[in-house]
């Protein structure tokens, strides 16, 4: 991969092609003692562009430290993603290759209670072909293969866990401002050594409409989707068909205040019964203002309520206030209630987070930020703890 990167760089210099690179390092501690439970995430990549093609190479390296207040289930892994997009008139071809290497063999539960195993690495090639016809029709087809290298704990058998998926859809932009779409996807999961071979598929038919006759500064869109599932869940029960209706609205209350509201309600159809499916209600209000620095300032307040077989409630505050030049103050706050996998919380817990920090965006594309956060949750005995989030990024193309 290293030699490939060098080769691409040489091609860039030789032929004066477009070249964009970036590096981002984020670190998050999650503990009373700052530094314990440190999660480090390093992203690096570049994009090479030609006349009708581009190539993107991205590397993501993630490690998670011990000693956090909450037990971490996160994997330590390195992910390499190579993607290209080539356009021939109305036809676009998009090959991808992703290699994911586990740095300390992450544990996974094998399907059908076949025991546990360690995942060592995975390889994922994919190909997407899309075509637009006469501006109004779009056709897309995708094939994806996911091969996971698994070492089973119980049987001392090394096995390959593969998933093959292929699907496609056709989209029609109707002349009156709506759209109609039909598509489907099919997945097959196989673990050869454990004799596991299951598949499921889904066919979607959806329609949406965005009327243009509403009062100024109002956007309203409605969508309806019907999904037919074929397959079984992990317990052997059939997957239900699902109808989902969504309503989204954006209203500019004032010149610099935007309110975004979304509702979604699903209904599930089993063989002989119909049940209410998941419900979602969300609202987001954004207030933009000039501030005192060169970076645009904004404060966003959002809330969400969902009901499915679990309930979640989320209230969030995010603010970036320009202070001087590229220096901005960051403000964060979050109230969350939802299901908990932490022992002793009774299945649900609350999280209250409040924090603040500084961000510095330099003109050469270098960004850095540091945020101190205080989090409280109904845990015992450590129900309040501190956290530091920090990062450095270099995005020269953003200058």
């Amino acid at each position, binding site marked *: 991969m290293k030699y490939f990167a060098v080769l691409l760089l040489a091609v860039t210099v030789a032929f004066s092609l477009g070249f964009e690179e970036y590096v981002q390092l984020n670190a998050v501690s999650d503990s009373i003692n700052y530094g314990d439970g440190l999660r480090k995430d390093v992203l690096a990549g570049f994009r090479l562009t030609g006349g009708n093609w581009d190539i993107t190479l991205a590397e993501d390296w993630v490690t998670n430290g011990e000693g956090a207040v909450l037990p971490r*289930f*996160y*994997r330590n*892994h390195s992910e390499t993603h190579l993607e290209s997009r080539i356009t021939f008139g109305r036809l676009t071809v998009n090959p991808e290759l992703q290699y994911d290497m586990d740095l300390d063999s992450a*544990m*996974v*539960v094998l*399907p059908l209670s076949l025991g546990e195993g360690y*995942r060592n690495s995975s390889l*994922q090639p*994919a190909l997407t072909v899309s075509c637009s016809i006469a501006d109004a029709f779009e056709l897309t087809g995708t094939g994806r293969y*996911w091969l*996971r290298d698994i070492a089973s704990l119980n049987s001392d058998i090394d096995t390959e866990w593969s998933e093959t998926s292929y699907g496609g859809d056709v989209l029609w932009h109707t002349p009156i401002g709506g759209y109609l779409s039909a598509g489907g996807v099919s*997945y097959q*999961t196989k673990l050869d050594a454990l004799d596991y071979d*299951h598949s*499921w598929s889904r066919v979607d038919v959806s329609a949406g409409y965005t009327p243009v006759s*509403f*009062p100024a500064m*109002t956007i309203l869109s409605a969508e309806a989707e019907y999904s037919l*599932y074929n397959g*079984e*869940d*992990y317990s052997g*029960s059939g*997957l*239900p068909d*699902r109808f989902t209706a969504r309503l*989204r609205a954006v*209203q500019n*209350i004032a010149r610099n205040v935007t*309110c975004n*509201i*979304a*509702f979604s*309600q*699903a209904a*599930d159809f089993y063989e002989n019964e119909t*049940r*209410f*499916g*998941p*419900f*979602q*209600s*969300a*609202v987001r209000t954004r207030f933009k203002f000039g501030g005192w620095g060169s970076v645009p300032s904004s404060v966003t307040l959002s809330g*969400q*309520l*969902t*009901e*499915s*077989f*679990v309930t*979640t409630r*989320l209230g969030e505050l995010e603010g970036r206030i320009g202070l001087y030049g590229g220096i901005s103050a960051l403000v964060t706050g979050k109230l969350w209630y*939802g*299901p*908990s*996998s932490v022992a002793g919380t009774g299945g649900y817990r609350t999280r209250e987070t409040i924090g603040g920090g500084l961000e510095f965006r330099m003109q050469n594309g270098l960004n850095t930020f540091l945020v101190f956060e205080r989090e409280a949750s109904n845990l015992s005995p450590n129900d309040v703890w501190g956290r530091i989030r920090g990062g450095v990024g270099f995005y020269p193309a953003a200058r």
Partner: protein
Amino acid sequence: MTRFTRLFLLAALAFTVVAACDGPLASALLTLDASRCIGCGECEEVCPYGAIEVIDGDAVINPELCHQCNRCIEACPEGAIY
């Protein structure tokens, strides 16, 4: 605030209250809101069943492998899974 805006916000509030009174409902499939998902991959990392993968910036849940352990719901920083 225009009359239309007030009416719209009132209707939205009423709909939310009525829908919320229904309480938790049984369903075998998790939902992923693609408009909220930022593709950070935290759900994929915490899933012990290997049932989630991030494709083209959106998480995709395999309903055949999902055991509804709710770890992805708890881990998602955007509240995109429910």
